[in-house]
C-alpha cells in the first residue's frame, strides 16, 4: 500500500488541503493574478468574438499537422517566457544574495528567495525550457515542415499526432498548476538521486515533476514514431532517399534517437515512482538500492536528448543558409553522414555527465575521447555551412542573421564543450557556472535555429511575413542580452562559482553578477521588440508570395502561401533534391495542374484532447495521492480509447470542384480560415 506520507491524507482529497495553496507568498499571488487576468482576457475574447466554436472545431479537435505544429509552437513560446522569468529570478537572487552581509527581503535571509523557493525555480527553469519550450518548438516545426518538404498530405498518423500534442500540453499544465497548488520539485531538472526519494523529498514537488516529465516524454515518443513513419512512408513520388532535404534527414536521425531513448527515461521515472509510492528501493542508497543506476539511466536518455534537440537545429540551418546564400547546400552527402554520426555517437557518451563520480581513468578516458569524436561531424557541418556561403549571394534577412549568430554560438559552445569533455579539466569545472554557460551557449544555438525557422516559415503558414525591422531589433537586443548574461558566467566558472547556489559566499564577484543581471534587463527589451514584431506583423498582414523569400529551394515553397489545409492541390512529382530550384532552372515553377483529383482527409476528433485532459487529471490526482480520481481518470482514458477503436469514421473526401475553388482563393483554404462542415465517409456510405 502507499508509503506513509508527511502530513494529513484523506481518501477523498488525498494530500490536498487548503494549506497547499501558497496564498502567503506575494510572488506567487502576483503571478496567479497575472495568469488569471490573461486567461480571462483570452477566454473572454473568444466568447466576445463568438470564436469558441471555431476554436473547438478548427484547433482543439484538429488533426491537421500544421495546426498541431502551430499549437506546439505557441506552447513552446509561452513556456519559453515562463522559463525566462524563472531564469531572471535566479539571476536576481544570486545578485542579491552575494556575501554574508547581503540583505534579505520577503522573509529570506539573503536575497528575496529562501532556498526552498529558489531550488524549485531552477528545477522548473530546466524542466520547462527543455521539455516544454525547446521540445515543443522543435516538434512543432517538424510537424509543420516535414510533411510539406516531402510532399505529404499530413503525418502518417494524424490522430496519434494530436495525442502527442495534448499529452505534452497535459505535462505543461501540471507544471503550471504546481505553481499555485502545492510545490514543484526542488531536486533539479535531472532528478538527483537519492535526493528525490521520500526521506529527503517527502512533498508533492518531485511527484509533479515526475508526472509532468512522464506525460511529455510519452508524447515525444509517440511523435517520434509518427515522424519516422511519415518520413519513411509518405514521401512524394520521385523523392528518393537522397532527394530528401537535409532537414528531413536530420529529423529522421533525431526521431530515431527519440524513439530509442525516451523509453529509457520512462522506465527510470516509473522505477522512481514505484520507490516513492510503494516504498521499494530501486534508487535508494541503502537496502541494496543503487542510485547510480538512475544516474546512468537518466543520462543514457539525457545525453542523446541533447542531440535530439540539436540535430533539428542543424537541419534548420541547412535549409536556411542555402536559401539566403542563393546556392545549393555544400556537401549534402557528408551532411547526412554527419547527422547519423552525431546521432550514433550520442548514444555512447552519456557518462561524461558524471566524470567526477570516480569511474577511474580508463572509463573517464574512454568517455572523454568518445565525446571529443562528436566534434568531428559537428565540425564538418560547420564547414559545410561555411562553404555554402562561400561564393554565394548572401542576403542578411532575419533568419540568416539568426543562423550566423547560431554558428558563432556553436563555435563558442563547441570549444567550451570540447574543454569540458576533457575529464582532466572537468575535475575543476564540473558543476560550475562554466558548465552552465556552456550548455546555455548550446541551447542558444537551438534557440537561434528556432527563431530563424519561425521567421523563415512564418509566411508559409500564415500568409504574411514577420516585420523585418522589429525582427532585427529583437535579434540584436537578444544577442547583446545573451552575451551580457552568459559571458560573465564563464568568468564566474573560472572564479570557482558552482551551480544551484541560492547564496554565494564570495562577495568579490558582485560586478560580474551585475553585468549578468544587466543582460536580463536587455532580454526584457528584446522581449518588447518580439511582441512589437508580432503586433505590427499581425496588424499589417502584408501578403507574401508562395516563394516568400524569393530564393526558396525546397518543396514547401511550391504550394500556396498561406499553405492550404490539404498542403498540395496535386501530389507533386519530385525531379531533384532542391525541387523548387530545379523547377525554376527549368522554367516550370509556375505550372499549374490542369485537373484535380479528390483528396481524402481525416476528420477532426475530440479524443486526443480528452485523453490529454484526462492525463492531466490523472497526473494531478496521483501527485496528490487521490487514489479514486487517479483510477477513475485512467479508466476513462482506456474506455475512450476502446470507444474510439469502434469508430468507423474514415475521414472525408475533398471533391475536385472544391479544390479548384479553393485553389483560386488560397485564403479560404488557409489554416486559420473556418471550414464548412463536410460529411464524413462513413456518413456518405450510410446514405
Amino acid at each position, binding site marked *: 500500500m502507499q508509503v506513509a506520507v508527511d502530513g494529513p491524507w484523506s481518501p477523498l482529497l488525498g494530500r490536498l488541503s487548503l494549506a497547499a495553496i501558497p496564498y502567503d507568498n506575494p510572488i506567487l499571488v502576483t503571478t496567479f493574478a497575472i495568469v488569471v487576468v490573461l486567461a480571462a482576457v483570452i477566454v473572454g475574447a473568444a466568447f466576445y468574438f463568438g470564436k469558441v466554436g471555431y476554436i473547438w472545431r478548427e484547433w482543439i479537435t484538429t488533426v491537421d499537422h500544421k495546426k498541431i505544429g502551430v499549437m506546439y509552437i505557441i506552447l513552446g513560446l509561452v513556456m519559453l517566457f515562463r522559463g525566462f522569468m524563472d531564469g531572471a529570478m535566479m539571476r536576481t537572487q544570486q545578485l542579491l544574495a552575494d556575501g554574508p552581509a547581503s540583505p534579505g527581503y520577503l522573509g529570506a535571509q539573503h536575497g528575496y528567495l529562501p532556498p526552498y523557493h529558489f531550488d524549485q525555480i531552477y528545477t522548473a527553469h530546466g524542466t520547462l525550457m527543455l521539455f516544454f519550450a525547446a521540445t515543443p518548438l522543435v516538434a512543432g516545426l517538424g510537424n509543420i515542415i516535414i510533411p510539406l518538404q516531402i510532399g505529404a498530405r499530413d503525418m502518417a498518423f494524424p490522430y496519434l499526432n494530436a495525442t502527442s500534442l495534448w499529452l505534452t500540453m497535459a505535462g505543461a499544465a501540471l507544471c503550471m498548476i504546481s505553481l499555485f497548488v502545492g510545490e514543484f520539485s*526542488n531536486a533539479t531538472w535531472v532528478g*538527483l538521486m537519492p535526493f528525490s526519494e521520500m526521506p529527503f523529498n517527502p512533498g508533492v514537488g518531485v511527484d509533479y515533476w515526475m508526472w509532468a516529465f512522464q506525460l511529455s516524454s510519452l508524447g515525444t515518443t509517440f511523435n517520434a514514431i509518427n515522424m519516422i513513419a511519415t518520413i519513411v512512408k509518405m514521401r512524394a513520388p520521385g523523392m528518393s532517399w537522397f532527394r530528401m532535404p537535409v532537414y528531413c534527414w536530420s529529423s529522421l536521425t533525431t526521431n530515431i534517437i527519440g524513439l530509442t531513448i525516451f523509453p529509457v527515461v520512462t522506465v527510470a521515472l516509473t522505477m522512481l515512482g514505484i520507490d516513492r509510492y510503494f516504498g521499494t528501493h530501486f534508487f535508494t542508497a541503502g537496502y541494496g538500492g543503487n542510485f547510480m543506476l538512475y544516474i546512468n539511466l537518466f543520462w543514457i536518455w539525457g545525453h542523446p536528448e541533447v542531440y535530439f534537440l540539436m540535430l533539428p537545429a542543424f537541419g534548420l540551418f541547412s535549409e536556411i543558409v542555402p536559401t539566403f546564400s542563393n546556392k545549393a547546400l555544400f556537401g549534402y552527402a557528408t551532411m547526412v553522414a554527419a547527422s547519423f554520426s552525431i546521432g550514433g555517437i550520442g548514444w555512447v557518451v552519456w557518462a561524461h555527465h558524471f566524470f567526477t563520480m570516480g569511474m577511474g581513468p580508463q572509463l573517464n578516458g574512454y568517455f572523454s575521447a568518445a565525446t571529443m569524436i562528436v566534434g568531428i561531424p559537428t565540425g564538418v557541418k560547420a*564547414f559545410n555551412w561555411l562553404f555554402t556561403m562561400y*561564393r554565394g549571394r548572401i542576403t542578411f534577412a532575419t533568419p540568416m542573421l539568426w543562423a550566423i549568430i547560431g554558428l558563432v554560438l556553436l*563555435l563558442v559552445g563547441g570549444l567550451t564543450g570540447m574543454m569540458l569533455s576533457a575529464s582532466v579539466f572537468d575535475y575543476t569545472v564540473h558543476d560550475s557556472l562554466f558548465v552552465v554557460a556552456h550548455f546555455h551557449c548550446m541551447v542558444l544555438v537551438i534557440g537561434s535555429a528556432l527563431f530563424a525557422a519561425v521567421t523563415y516559415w512564418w509566411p508559409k503558414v500564415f500568409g504574411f511575413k514577420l516585420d523585418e525591422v522589429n525582427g532585427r531589433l529583437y535579434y540584436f537586443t537578444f544577442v547583446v542580452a545573451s552575451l551580457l548574461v552568459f559571458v560573465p558566467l564563464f568568468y564566474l566558472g573560472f572564479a570557482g562559482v558552482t551551480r544551484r547556489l541560492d547564496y554565494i559566499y564570495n562577495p568579490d564577484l558582485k560586478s560580474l553578477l551585475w*553585468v549578468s543581471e544587466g543582460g536580463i534587463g536587455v532580454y526584457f527589451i528584446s522581449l518588447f521588440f518580439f511582441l512589437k514584431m508580432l503586433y505590427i506583423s499581425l496588424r499589417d498582414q502584408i501578403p507574401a508570395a508562395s516563394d516568400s523569400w524569393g530564393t526558396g529551394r525546397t518543396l514547401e515553397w511550391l504550394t500556396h502561401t498561406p499553405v492550404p489545409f490539404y498542403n498540395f492541390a496535386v501530389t507533386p512529382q519530385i525531379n531533384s533534391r532542391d525541387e523548387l530550384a530545379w523547377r525554376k532552372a527549368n522554367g516550370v515553377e509556375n505550372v499549374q495542374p490542369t485537373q484535380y483529383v479528390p483528396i481524402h482527409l481525416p476528420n477532426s476528433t475530440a479524443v486526443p484532447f480528452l485523453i490529454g485532459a484526462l492525463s492531466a487529471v490523472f497526473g494531478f490526482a496521483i501527485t496528490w495521492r487521490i487514489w479514486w480520481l487517479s483510477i477513475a481518470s485512467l479508466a476513462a482514458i482506456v474506455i475512450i480509447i476502446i470507444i474510439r477503436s469502434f469508430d468507423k469514421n474514415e475521414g472525408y473526401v475533398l471533391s475536385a470542384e472544391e479544390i479548384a475553388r479553393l485553389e483560386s482563393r488560397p485564403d479560404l483554404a488557409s489554416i486559420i480560415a473556418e471550414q464548412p462542415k463536410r460529411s464524413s465517409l462513413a456518413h456518405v456510405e450510410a446514405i
Partner: protein
Amino acid sequence: MKPPKQRRVSLLLKSLVSLPALLLSGCTMDDLRLFHPVGLVARAETHYIVLLVIAMSVIIVPTLVMLIVFPLRYHHSRNAKYTPDWHFSLGIELAAWGVPFVIVAYLAYLTIQGVYAVDPWGPGILVNAPGASQPPITVQVIATDWQWVFVYPDQGVATIDDLVVPAGRIVKLQMTSTGNMNGFYIPQVAPMVDVMPAMESKDAFELDQPASYIGFSTDFSGAGFSWMQFSTRVVPQADFDAWVKSTQASPNQLTYAAFQKIAQPTVNFGAKPAYFAAPDKGLFGEVIMAAMQGVVYPVPDSLTKKVSENPAQGAQTPASPQ
C-alpha cells in the same frame, strides 16, 4: 531616417565594446582562481587545458575568421564571384573530416594522459611530488546534510568544516556521505569528486607551502547546500602536530552516537568549525555500513521550507579561515 538608425548601431557597438571593459574593471585575473592553481594536481589540470585549448584553436580560429569573412565577402551587394551550383569538393570534404580527426586524436591522447596524471584515486603526478617520500596523511571525509566531518583515523581527531593538513605531505581523502550526494571541491587545490552515500570515493592533493583555501560542496543536496563551505588550512608539520595534540585532549569525543546527532540535518551558517577527539578508528566504515543498511537522516518538508527563511537564524558572521 538615417541618423536614428546610425545612432542605434553606434549604441550597439558601444555596448559591445564596453562589455570586456566592464568585465575587466570589476573582475581582475586574481578572482579567476582556476588560473592560479596550487599544487601539482591542480597545476596539471590547468596545464592540460591550456594545451588542449591551443590545439583546438587550430580549428576554431580559422573557422571563426571564415564565419566573419564569408558573409561579408559574399554579401549580394559585393558582387563577388558567384557559383550557384557548386556544391561539392572532395578536397574540402577530406580536409573537413581529416583535420578535425587529427586534432581530436591529439586531444584524446592528451586527455587520457592527463586523466591518469590527476586521477583522484591515485594521481600519477604525485609520484614525483616533493612530499612523496613522506608517508601520506589520510583524512576521512563524511558529508552530512549539510556539514563536513573530517576524521583523522591515524591521529584520533576529527573536525567539522575545518580541514587541517600538514604542508609537504600527500593528503589522501576517503570520502562518503550519510544520505545525499555531494561534491567535494577545493578550487585551486583538489579536484572535484562526488561524495556518495554507501560508497567510498577518493581524492588526493599535496601542497608544499602553508596557506588557506575555501572548499565547498558542488553537488546540490538540499536546502542547506549553499552553506556547505569548509576551510582548508595547510600548516607546517610542527604546527599540525601541535594542533593534533591539543585536539586529542578535547573533551568532545566523536563516537558513532555523537556522530548520529551531528548527522541530523543542520545548516552551519558561516561554517563555524568544531573539534573532537576521535579515537574510534571504525567510524568511517560504520557510516558507510549504516547507509548500506538503509540508515537515513530524513529531511522533513517543514525543515526544507524553514531553512534560511527566518532572519533570526542567520546574522552570524562567517568564521574566517586562518
